[in-house]
């Protein structure tokens, strides 16, 4: 009963607004565009944020990635043809990290090697990672066939290789995959498994195995290929000695990630003369991305707030005019026995209907806009329930807030005076 009366009041409000279609529509426009832009901007922001988060999540939120870089000093040193440039992480760094950081659950050393590989009469350059079994616990990869590296592969220096899809496609093509013998450099490796690889990049940080073709045990890489590399670039031959290209570590707890990263940096600074390493923490990036998103949302919220404020003022303005225009009607209703409260309700409901209707249309517009953006530009957008409900709630609140004053004005109308003026 009470419910049906509520619905009836809303219907009456709508009827009244319908009497002034054009005016009501124009009044609503402020809300339509205000709410529409909020919904659209929220979903674009959410989409961009989510994409960034996903990219970062691929890097592992618990991970600390330490990479070897050629220090500035080393880069500028000119030692002629014969000079060997030495830099980067060492096997000792790896050992020290294992020994001194209990918060690290897994530590995977990485050695990057480019070698000519051969399978039958096929020849190609292969991008090889020398690492341990820890890698596969640290950077989980879907195993497509066979297995990944094992502890014994490392300790017993077994010449086995786990190929990535890239590598497998390059090398094996149509052949039967597992059990094949591949020659890497001059040594024979047995293919024991194939894994899927992820690709992706977040700012300067790359997925560790972005362009990897094969994984082999670190001990094998070290024994077979050594630590010296020869690179040819721009006609010059560059000789380098690098023990480890990367050490990827995983903390046991999110809270330990950043303190541990700092401690590692501290330790490395002690043992390295030059700054020939770089520490990246995906979590820090994640935090940064979140902070950026928060800032974005605040800016967005302010813009939206202002536009909704403008919309609300527009509605209030029209409702005030409407009250003046309908003074006589109010007088008639009061003379018949309507209480002040009922007059307030009538006008408040009209304002709320106006603003909420505007809000609903705005949501419709705001949902279509990101869909169109995604359709035309491929930019990801995400509609969250909050991104829809929040603007709707706001439009309701705007209706109440900006409707109260005109409604109170309406209730103040003196029926005797209202009925006297023609």
């Amino acid at each position, binding site marked *: 009963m009470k419910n049906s009366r509520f619905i009836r009041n809303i219907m009456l409000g709508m009827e009244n607004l319908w009497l002034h279609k054009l005016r009501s529509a124009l009044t609503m426009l402020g809300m339509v565009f205000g709410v529409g832009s909020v919904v659209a901007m929220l979903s674009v922001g959410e989409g961009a944020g989510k994409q960034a988060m996903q990219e970062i999540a691929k890097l592992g939120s618990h991970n600390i990635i330490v990479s070897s870089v050629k220090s500035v000093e080393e880069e500028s040193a000119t030692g002629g043809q014969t000079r060997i440039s030495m830099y980067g992480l060492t096997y000792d760094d790896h050992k020290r990290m294992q020994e001194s950081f209990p918060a690290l659950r897994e530590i995977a050393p990485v050695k990057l090697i480019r070698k000519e590989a051969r399978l039958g009469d096929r020849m190609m350059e292969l991008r090889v990672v020398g690492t341990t079994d820890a890698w596969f616990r640290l950077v989980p990869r879907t195993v497509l066939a066979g297995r990944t590296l094992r502890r014994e592969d490392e300790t017993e220096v077994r010449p086995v290789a786990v190929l990535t899809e890239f590598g497998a496609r390059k090398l094996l093509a149509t052949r039967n995959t597992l059990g094949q013998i591949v020659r890497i450099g001059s040594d024979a490796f047995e293919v024991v498994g194939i894994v899927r690889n992820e690709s992706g990049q977040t700012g300067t940080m790359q997925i560790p195995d972005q362009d990897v073709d094969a994984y082999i045990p670190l001990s094998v890489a070290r024994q077979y290929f050594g630590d010296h590399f020869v690179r040819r670039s721009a006609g010059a031959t560059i000789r380098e000695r690098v023990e480890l290209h990367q050490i990827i570590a995983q903390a046991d707890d999110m809270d330990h990630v950043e303190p541990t990263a700092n401690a590692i940096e501290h330790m490395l600074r002690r043992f390295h003369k030059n700054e020939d390493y770089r520490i990246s923490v995906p979590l820090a990036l994640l935090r940064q991305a979140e902070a950026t998103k928060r800032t974005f949302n605040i800016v967005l919220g302010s813009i939206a707030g202002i536009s909704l404020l403008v919309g609300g003022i527009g509605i209030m303005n029209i409702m005030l005019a409407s009250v003046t225009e309908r003074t006589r009607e109010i007088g008639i209703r009061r003379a*018949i*026995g309507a209480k002040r409260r009922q007059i307030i309700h009538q006008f408040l409901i009209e304002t709320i209907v106006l603003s909420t209707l505007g809000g609903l249309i705005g949501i419709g517009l705001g949902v279509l806009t990101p869909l169109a953006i995604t359709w035309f530009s491929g930019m990801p957008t995400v509609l969250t329930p909050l991104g829809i409900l929040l603007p709707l709630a706001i439009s309701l609140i705007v209706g109440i807030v900006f409707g109260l004053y005109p409604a109170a004005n309406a209730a103040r109308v003196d029926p005797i005076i209202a009925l006297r003026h023609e």
Partner: protein
Amino acid sequence: MTAQDNTIVQLDRAVKTYAMGLQKVHALNDVSLDIKSGSFWAVMGSSGSGKSTLLNIVGCLDRLSSGAYLVEGQNVAGLDDNALSDRRLRQIGFIFQSFNLIPQLTVQRNIELPLYYLGWDAERSRERGRELARKVGLEDRLNHRPSELSGGQMQRVAIARALANDPRLLLADEPTGNLDSATGEQIMRLLRDLHGEGKTIVMVTHESHVAAYAQNRLHMKDGRIDRIESS
């Protein structure tokens, strides 16, 4: 005071003053009056004599400056705005010179208006609205807007609306003032019939042939009762 329960309206030394700047206007000045239930009164007098003010007081639209006003034995002088609204809603029907229909509502909806505030459901209200329209001879105009009606028809709609809450007291401020004499006669016959059905009617008018329909004619002068004629 013998028939207390038979008195529907009782004014005792009623005073209504309006402040006009420093000047005070006594729109009602020491008016004492008993109106018996079921009687038909015409209030007459020159412009500004306080007729409308009297009607507004009796109709609970306005409050006295001093004095007592009792409706069916109950003093309403001290009631607040809400309570007065409730009196109007439940006990009083108003008819105005300029009809005062709500232009954007249909005849049906205008008649139903008091029922909405009485909390009637839509179905029952519609039924009652049709019934009242039939009573005033406008059942074929239910879906028209006031602007599509003649003056007499509009006043009949207003009367139907005034009857919706089945009030004991009908108040009419110059109900024929905006109508030609033939149409005015029609409206007066309708009021006479309602009086015949037991309604108490208080009507303000300037015209003696209209006042002739009433049993009691109250003449106002400068906010006071000049004389009362009964027939």
